[in-house]
């Protein structure tokens, strides 16, 4: 589901799943999208706080134990992990990978001495 209908086009012609237009904070839309029978819910809108609210609605109201929430802000992601939300923080993943990529370069740890 997405609140913009254009998003459906991005899924391409091969998409055979359903698509619901609406905002995830709207319980009616969540129901229409089938949240009641869902085994897993992924919440990945571009708003951290929106995701935090929808994630808790899925978890606490609809009892979906496999609810995964994207939170870009590492501090909020860490806090909500302590609150029992399964959070994924792409910012932290990027920082870790970038750091790892730099570390794996063969850069001399000391400036070369002539």
């Amino acid at each position, binding site marked *: 589901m997405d609140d913009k209908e254009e998003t459906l086009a991005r899924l391409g012609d091969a998409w055979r799943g359903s698509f619901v237009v609406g905002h995830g*904070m*709207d*319980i009616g839309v969540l129901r229409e999208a089938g949240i009641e029978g869902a085994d897993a819910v992924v919440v990945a809108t571009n*708003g*951290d*706080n*929106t995701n*935090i*609210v929808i994630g*808790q*609605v899925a978890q*606490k*109201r609809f009892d979906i134990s496999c609810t995964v929430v994207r939170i870009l*802000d590492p*501090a*909020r992601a860490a*806090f909500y992990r302590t*609150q029992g939300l399964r959070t994924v923080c792409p910012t932290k993943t990027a920082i870790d990978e970038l750091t790892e990529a730099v570390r794996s370069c063969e850069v001399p740890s000391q400036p070369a001495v002539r």
Partner: protein
Amino acid sequence: MYALIAGGGKVGANVLRTLQRLGHEATLVEQRRDRYERLEDEFGHEIHHGDATEIYVLERAGIRRPPDLVVALTGDDEDNLVICQIAREKYGVDKVVARVNDPRNQEHFDLIGIAPTVCATSSIMALVQHEVPEHELVQLLELRRENLEIVEVQIDANSPSAGRRVDTLSLPEGARLISVLRGGGESEIAIGSTELQPGDQVLAILRPGKEDELRRILLRA
């Protein structure tokens, strides 16, 4: 008392002004640069610039103390909810107050247990309904802590309760009539001998969820 306010629009600024006038200490966090600058001109160091849903912004504004009260008054309900949740769960803030902008989001605050909340739209809607001549049952006041609400019911000529004494009505358990406002503008406290008449506006106090039963007894059989 020390209060932290998130959101410096008209509501937030007035809350800050009032708290200061009452002699309380308060800081306010505002995200928009233009608003922040205007508020800083008026209030000086009590104003912090930033997104109040970011933990380091809250910490800079003093959430670690922690405040006696956090008031979340931004225009975004998800932000208000997260601010209150972080304040309470991470920093042990005892009292939080949240503004609900869209009444449809009220249930999310209830689910997560953020209370009390204030929703201007709902209050205005209740007042509008109250003014509509032929309203049935209108919620006037929600007493969340008591788990009670006060509603207004308008009796008409077809109502089964019209012409009957209050003590002959089988009101639902957990509901009582408070008062009756007559057409002429005079009102009386509802007691057993009070007789309901068409045109009466009746105030009742009841447990939430009892509205339909009350409606059935008073308005239609």
